[in-house]
């Protein structure tokens, strides 16, 4: 099996001029990148017929950005490889380009973007390329700063190439710790070649069911639900708040605010049943 690019060199070295050229000349690569970008765009659920502002993380030569342009959106792209960005400039993409390392954080003001897209880039963060790199820390710095620079009802969609199940967990866990909701959508799970992973994250609003992966009969999404998230937060905080009186009162209050029918509070609220029924 071919060596994974992340194992051969850091991204700013691997994506040199020769590699970058492929992203403007190799029709096969271009086709694949565009196809994944279109699918990610679909999962982004941006408002139709409105032009939004989107962040493209690991934008490279701007192939993913072109899909945003075609759909009438403005974009700002960030990438660690000067050579890739040079190709993007030569292609005269409409998006604006920034040289930056996603592991150092997204250096934008709060609430700047309507959404974010990232194609074939985030697996690079799972590697420690410098002696002081700690992948978990860099992922956490990335996701917390990304969360902050998105608007309150935004999505971020990442197509990526996980090396193994632990990497999927590591990435997803750091994203959830940072405040996001969401999960993984797997397209064509039964095909070695066409199988693709998309991490779909949401900043807030109404929790939506993730769509089923393409080429699947039943849903093949690993939706990370509120309960899983609570489990995880529990581990972080170390105690179970679920079903405590406070927790129930909070839930009831929310239901009332949402206009749902809710039982009145009483002195029995949140108490254990005696079991004598």
């Amino acid at each position, binding site marked *: 099996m071919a060596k994974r690019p992340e194992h051969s060199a850091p991204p700013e070295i691997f994506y040199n001029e020769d590699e970058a050229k492929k992203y403007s000349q190799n029709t096969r690569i271009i086709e694949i990148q565009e196809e994944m970008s279109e699918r990610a765009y679909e999962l982004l659920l941006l408002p139709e017929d409105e032009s939004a502002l989107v962040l493209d993380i690991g934008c490279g030569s701007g192939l993913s950005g072109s899909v945003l342009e075609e759909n009438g959106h403005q974009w700002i792209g960030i990438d660690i490889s000067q050579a890739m960005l040079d190709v993007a*400039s030569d292609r005269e993409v409409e998006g*604006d380009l920034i040289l*930056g390392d996603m592991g*150092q*954080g*997204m*250096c934008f003001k709060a609430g700047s973007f309507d959404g974010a897209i990232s194609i074939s880039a985030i697996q690079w963060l799972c590697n420690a390329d410098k002696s002081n790199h700690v992948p978990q820390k860099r992922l956490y710095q990335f996701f917390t700063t990304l969360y902050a*620079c998105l608007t309150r009802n935004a999505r971020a969609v990442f197509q990526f190439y996980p090396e193994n199940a632990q990497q999927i967990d590591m990435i997803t866990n750091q994203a959830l710790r940072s405040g996001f909701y969401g999960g993984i959508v797997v397209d064509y799970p039964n095909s070695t070649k066409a199988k693709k992973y998309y991490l779909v994250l949401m900043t807030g609003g109404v929790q939506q069911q993730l769509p089923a992966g393409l080429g699947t009969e039943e849903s093949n999404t690993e939706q990370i639900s509120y309960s899983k998230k609570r489990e995880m937060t529990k581990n972080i905080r170390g105690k179970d708040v679920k079903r405590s009186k406070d927790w129930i009162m909070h839930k009831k209050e929310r239901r009332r605010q949402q206009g749902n029918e809710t039982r009145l509070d009483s002195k029995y609220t949140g108490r254990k049943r005696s079991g004598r029924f």
Partner: protein
Amino acid sequence: MKLLTYNFLTSKCIKKVKVGYPLKLNIMEQKVESTNFNPEFIQRVLPRLDWSAIKIAADSVGCQGFPDEINLETSTNDTELLQKLHHLLLEIEVVTGSLICPETNRIFPITNGIPNMLLNEDEV
């Protein structure tokens, strides 16, 4: 670098920097490229724009006629203002120059239209 991007960029990823905004803007070379005016897009981002940074950008490139303060309610239907913002934010491109962190004076060079926001490992 478009001035829209300038309005959103900060230097807060540097260790110990609190706000890192607005960045100082130093332009050595700029160019203008006209693009289609899309008022809805400007209306959409208007509430997210920082007006002090708009003024800095307008002063740096010599665009005049931006009010000192912005009234969101009246501005969103002020076509003339929207058009001016369109020009300032999307048509003017900083080709060479630099951005400077207001708290540490760290310089981020802009070359060939691309700001270099990479930090050294001891800065993160």
